[in-house]
């Protein structure tokens, strides 16, 4: 019986001692360490933040240039001359306008693409998920088309300048350029509504 009394007395005494994680003055306290996260989840990474900032800046520039490139690209399509048959006297001013717009669109396109191509990859998030995947996939179509279209266009230009009817691969310039413009516009619209 004495032992029981002793045990109860000791329990009462010890119950007044501080409990780990508790503070008598401010009550129970908790910290991130108590929640069981790994150290790499809770530790900040300034270098990664800078990398993400660089990525965002470059992709923002890519976005703005991409929207701007759409203007000469559409204008190039709209000023496309018809060369179904031989044109006596060679090319005219309409063709020259189309060519100038095409060169402008091409240069802007490549500049736009370079900002996306050289933007740092992000860490910590699963890559290529969502409509961004579609945007990147469309590049596999409009990028080669944008390379091929001016080449075919130049061939067509030379043939027309010689007074020949456009023939061979050059006669597909219109379709290839249309494919480039169409998929480019689709890629742009996907990101506008996927913001």
């Amino acid at each position, binding site marked *: 019986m004495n*032992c029981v009394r002793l045990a109860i007395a000791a329990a009462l005494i010890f119950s007044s001692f501080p409990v780990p994680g*508790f503070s008598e003055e401010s009550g*129970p306290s908790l910290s991130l360490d108590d929640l069981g996260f790994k150290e790499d989840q809770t530790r900040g990474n300034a270098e990664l933040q800078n990398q993400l900032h660089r990525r965002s800046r470059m992709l923002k520039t890519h976005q703005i240039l991409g929207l701007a490139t759409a203007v000469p690209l559409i204008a190039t399509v709209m000023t496309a001359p018809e060369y179904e048959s031989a044109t006596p006297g060679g090319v005219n001013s309409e063709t020259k306008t189309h060519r100038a717009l095409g060169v402008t669109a091409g240069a802007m396109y490549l500049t736009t693409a370079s900002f996306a191509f050289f933007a740092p990859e992000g860490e910590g998030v699963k890559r290529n998920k969502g409509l961004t995947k579609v945007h990147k996939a469309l590049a596999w179509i409009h990028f080669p088309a944008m390379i091929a279209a001016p080449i075919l266009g130049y061939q067509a230009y030379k043939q027309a300048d010689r007074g020949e009817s456009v023939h061979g691969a050059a006669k597909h310039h219109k379709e290839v350029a249309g494919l480039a413009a169409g998929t480019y516009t689709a890629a742009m619209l996907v990101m506008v509504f996927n913001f």
Partner: protein
Amino acid sequence: MRRFFLFAFLLVGAVGLRAGGWVLDSSTLTYRVTHRLHKVEGTSHGARGKGLCDGSGCRFLVAAPVNTFDSGDSNRDLHMIETTRGAQFPMVKVSVNLAAVPAGEAFTADLSIEFAGKSHRYASVPFRVADRSAGLRFTGQIPLRLTDFSVPAPSLLGMAVKDDVPVDVEMSWSQKP
């Protein structure tokens, strides 16, 4: 030997009775961003939390890694992490003090939130208790705003997203044995 075990049992019991512990079993946190062209939601199930109760009240701490929020698009999620300084401040922390464990169908709580390297307090945020059969499950909405944490509002075509980014909360807590 029997006396020793009785003594030890009473000693541990006396200490243990002082502390009531809660652990977060599961959670769904969903932020909603509104732009003129469309709305975006990002959801995280990666929060962890603990609660401690004693005679002076209850304190709860919930934290979630910023990179666990998934909006369905990896590029958008990376941009979100960059905008919210999520690489430098990878955790969003919510601290709550309550006088006692909620007993009714609804309760309000003052939330102290650390996010994007800043702190902000939201007073009297209402929550609704959904279920008590296995612990405590409740839902609510935190009226978070980007300006409260100095987060620059993303924009597209010259139009910025709305400052209000409410966070829907659904949590299930259980008492520690």
